[in-house]
């Protein structure tokens, strides 16, 4: 098992945090943003019987959360490979 240099490890961590911040922003926007803070203006828009804000609060945010986690899984896997820090089998 080769040891990663300190700079490489720091860069890996920086990229990891950047990805995390981006995804946490999406997480915040769909739940606290669309589901709570902006719910009133969004409710003016309708998709079928759903008011959009209500839909985000009770359905859309949850679906987005799933998307966020699986995107994170894939992006981190790529990052691990790029920096050669995957686990040994």
């Amino acid at each position, binding site marked *: 098992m080769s040891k990663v240099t300190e700079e490489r490890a720091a860069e890996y961590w920086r990229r990891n945090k950047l990805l995390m911040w981006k995804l946490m922003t999406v997480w915040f926007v769909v*739940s606290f943003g669309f589901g709570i803070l902006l719910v009133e203006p969004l409710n003016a828009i309708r*998709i079928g019987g759903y008011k959009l804000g209500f839909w985000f609060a009770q359905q859309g*945010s*949850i679906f987005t*959360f799933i998307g966020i986690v699986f995107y994170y899984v894939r992006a981190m896997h790529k990052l691990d490979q790029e920096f050669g820090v995957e686990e040994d089998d």
Partner: protein
Amino acid sequence: MDLAYITYLVVGFTFAVYIGIAIWARAESTKDFYVAGGGVHPIANGMATGADWMSAASFISMAGLIGMSYNGYGGSVFLMGWTGGYVILAMLLAPYLRKYGKFTVPEFIGDRFYSDTARVVAVICLILCSVTYVIGQMKGIGVAFSRFLETDYETGLYTGMVIVFFYAVLGGMKGITYTQIAQYMVLILAYTVPAIFISLQLTGNPFPQLGLGSTLVGTDTYLLDKLDQVLVETGFAEYTTSVRLSTLNMFAFTASLMVGTAGLPHVIIRFFTVPKVKDARSSAGWALVFIAILYTTAPAVAAMARLNIMQTIEPENGSYLIIEERPEWFKTWEKTGLLRIEDKDGDGRVRYVADAQSNELVKLDNDILVLANPEIAQLPNWVIALVAAGGLAAALSTAAGLLLAISSAISHDLLKSTFMPNISERAELNASRGAMAVAVFGAGYLGLNPPGFAAGTVALAFGLAASSIFPALMMGIFSKRINREGAIAGMLGGLGMTLFYVFQHKGIMFVAEWRYLENLGENWFFGIEPNAFGCIGALLNFAIAMAVSRITAPPPARIQDLVEDIRVPMGSGVAHQH
């Protein structure tokens, strides 16, 4: 076939499966007992996490909370809060704690903050939030038995205890993991089948998630519009827009539930059972998928069952249900005390309106929405039996996960790591079985003699996890500067502040006479209700830990190396050797 007979058959069958699994999945080592050997497939672990997470409250009470108490939109706090926590868990905690590769949550806190005191404080926080949580599950088991199988509460509780005892003591995490997978299948089937039927009946769409946004069968009216209209006509607030207290309060409540979810030890330890760091990440995603199946169905059940009830009572505008002609399910649930009619004006009809003076449906328990759902929709008896088995599966699986978190904190963190470091593996395995047995009986005792404060405690568990455990874990991973003094002060400060705020408004130990401020909006900090206070406690924890760490010595170099090491996936196989 007779309903009671089918129910016994279905519940008996599921119990036989759980016991069969227990015999097959015995624990041979402490690694088996604490982390199921560490070789659980990420999808299997996701499913087990789903059952671990979804408690009697999620299964039986949540739809009712959303549909009735929180009147629709307000209930979104539970939906977003109890799923959004998994995003935090997946990105901020699970992979790193898995990389560290030990057995318990206090173990990480004790090692990272190089202090037995920190470990013991973490054990106290863990036990406080897990014990409060487990009381609710034990009650759920007793209630489910007494309602469906018509046994008394005590008999139901004893039966549940024997089943949990069997597979938790024999198999530890290994037995619990595989029974949880079976329990997940039972509970999700039991939840979705009636929901699909109801959605079909009302909207013609088999997917409740789509049915909720569809038109009612044979009309051009959308279900949600109809519900809004019916509720407004009877004096309630509009279903799709009624906010819980205030926007700020909804924000704080959602944040507290999210952070609390990510900080609950019995959920975190599930991610120690997968082989690799990347499995811990994907397992969190799978857990969320399995949870979302129930959590996106619940709001549909809430709205549809509420509409069904409103329309049963007021079939046509202004013409109320004649009491003599009320449906059978009405009478069944009146016997349990969950439903009560009082014909105040003596006209022989039931009026159900928001105004308490003239409302005649004087008792309509939240739990009715899920429990009576199959009967209201006139579904066959086997569906009702399935709901009984599902409710029990939800309560048993969560109880077992909590009991494991408690017993491993006692046998591993207190005994092995703090007081008897030279204990042999065999002796520790026996001790963990002993601790599990004690935990099962302790929880059973509390279930039989619920302390007066039991009702308010599940919400408190989230507040405590959010304000004590989550910040310590997160700072332990993301900061190299947070030291022993900071972490301990932060945990105690967050925990203390949250307890203080809750007790201030709800009474010390929830005894109402012992509160020192009225539980009223005007006395609340920025109008935040006590249940929603966990996130403020968490902020305080972060602030104290950072301030104290700044003015005390930084952690030693080996701890800084440890933090560097857990941030990189490579080498987790090595870390797992004890």
